[in-house]
C-alpha cells in the first residue's frame, strides 16, 4: 500500500485473494462475446496495469506472462503475442508506479493511456510484420475507452481496502 498525494485516506492492506479474483474476473470479461465490438477495452491489460501500479511487489511480469499465455490460447492468436505485450506493460507500469501514484486520478489515466496504447500497438506490429491482415482502426480504440474507465476501475478495485470513516475526537488523524 502506498500513500497517494490526492487522497489522505489510509487504506487497509490488500488481500491477495482479491487480486487473484480480479485478474480472473478480467480474464472472464475478456472471454465474453462482446470482445468483437470496437472500443471494448482489454480488461486483463487494464486490471494488470492497475495492480502492477498499486502492488508492484505482488503482481509483476510473472502474472503478466501467465495471463498472456491464457489470452493467446483463448484468442487463437499466435502464442507469445499477448505474453510479450503484457510483460512489457507490467514492466513499464511497475517502473513508473511510484511516480504515477503521486498524481490525481484523472492525470493518472492520462499516463496510463500511452502504456495501454503501446501494448495494443506492439501486438498490431507483431502480427502485421508476420503477414496478418489489418484489423481496422477499431482495434486501437480499446485503450481510449480503458483510459476513461480508469477512475471507476480504481474505485471498484480499491473498494475492499477502504475503511469506514470514523471520527475519533481524541485521535484526530
Amino acid at each position, binding site marked *: 500500500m502506498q500513500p497517494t498525494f490526492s487522497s489522505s485516506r489510509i487504506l487497509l492492506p490488500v488481500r491477495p485473494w482479491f487480486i487473484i479474483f480480479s485478474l480472473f474476473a478480467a*480474464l*472472464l*470479461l*475478456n*472471454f*465474453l*462475446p462482446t*470482445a*468483437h465490438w470496437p472500443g471494448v477495452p482489454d480488461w486483463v491489460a487494464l486490471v494488470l496495469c492497475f495492480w502492477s501500479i498499486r502492488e*508492484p*511487489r505482488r503482481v*509483476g*511480469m*510473472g502474472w*503478466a*506472462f501467465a495471463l*498472456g*499465455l*491464457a489470452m493467446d*490460447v*483463448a*484468442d*487463437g*492468436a*499466435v*502464442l*507469445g*503475442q499477448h*505474453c*510479450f505485450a503484457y*510483460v*512489457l506493460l507490467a*514492466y513499464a507500469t*511497475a*517502473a*513508473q*508506479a*511510484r*511516480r504515477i501514484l503521486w498524481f490525481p486520478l484523472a492525470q493518472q489515466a492520462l499516463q496510463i493511456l500511452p502504456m495501454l496504447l503501446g501494448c495494443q500497438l506492439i501486438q498490431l506490429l*507483431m*502480427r502485421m510484420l*508476420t*503477414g*496478418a*491482415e489489418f*484489423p*481496422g482502426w477499431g*482495434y486501437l480504440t480499446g485503450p481510449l475507452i480503458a483510459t476513461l474507465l480508469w477512475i471507476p476501475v480504481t474505485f471498484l478495485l480499491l473498494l475492499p481496502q477502504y475503511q469506514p470513516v470514523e471520527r475519533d475526537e481524541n485521535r484526530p488523524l
Partner: protein
Amino acid sequence: MAGTDHAPPPFFKRGPAPLALLTFYIAISLALFVVDLRLRSIDLLRQSIALVTDPMQRAAQTPGSLVDHAGGYLRGLHNLLDENARLKQAQLQLAPNLLRLEHLEGENERLRKLLAVTEREKANGAVARIMYTARDPFSRRIIIDKGQQSGIVAGQPAIDEAGVVGQVTRVFPFSAEVTLITDKDQVVPIQVVRSGQRSVVFGLGSGQLELRYIPANADIKEGDLLVTSGLDGVYLPGFPVARVVSIERENSYAFARIRCVPVAAVENFGEVLVLSPRQPQPPAPPESPGRTGNTGAPSKAAAK
C-alpha cells in the same frame, strides 16, 4: 527507468532484478512466437493450456446463449410452426431429386465399375455447432463444439448447406478451430463450372476471395460459380465455393483481378458439417495423367 536505478540493500530479498526478469520473459515470449508461427510444433502446450481456458470460455459464452435461448422461447410457437411447415414443404420439393440421386449414384457406381474406374468417394461427416468466432482480430476463424473426443483431426474440410466454409486447423480435446476460406491467404483449389478451368482461390481477409493467376484473356465472367476441383486430396470435388462478382482487366498486368464472394454463409453463426478426411490418393504416375480427375486408374493399370 525510475524504479530500477536504485539497487536495494542485499539484506532485503526482492528476487531477481526487474531488468533480468524482463529479459527472461521477453526471450521466452519471442521464442514461443517464432516457434508457433514458423514451426507450429507446440500444439501440445496449446492444448494443455486450453484445458484450463476452455471451461472459462464456455462459462463466458453462457450469458449470450441464455439470452438467445430466452429470445427463441419468447418468439413462441407460431414461428416454429411456420418454420416446420416451410421445412416440410422444402423437403417434399427436394424429395424427387434426392430419391433420384440415390438411384443415380447407384447407376454411376455400376457404370464406373464397368469402366474399371475407381469409385467416387462418398461424403460423410459429423455435424458440429459453431460456438463462437475466435477472438483474434487478425484472422478469420471459428470454434466448433467437436474436437479430439469426436475424432476430428486437423485438415478436415467444413461445409454448410450452401458450400465450403473452411478447414479445421487446430484440434483441442472438446473443440476445434476452423479457418474460414475468407482468412488471408487460405487457399482452396477450384474449378470454374462453366468453362472447366482449374485454378486456386485465395482468401483476402476482407470477407472476399480472389482468383489469382488467371490470364487477362481467360474465359471467365461475372456470376461464374467456382466449385472445389478435388485435386488437393482435402476437399471432395464439386462443392460450391464462391461466385465471381467483379473482374478488372488492366493492360499493365498479365493477370486479371477477379474478386469472388463465398457461396456459403461463411461469417454467420450456425451449424457446419465436418467432412471426414479423404482416403489418401495413390501417387501420381510419371506420365501426365490426362484430363480425367481420377488419379487411381493409371497407377492400378501400371501395377498390373
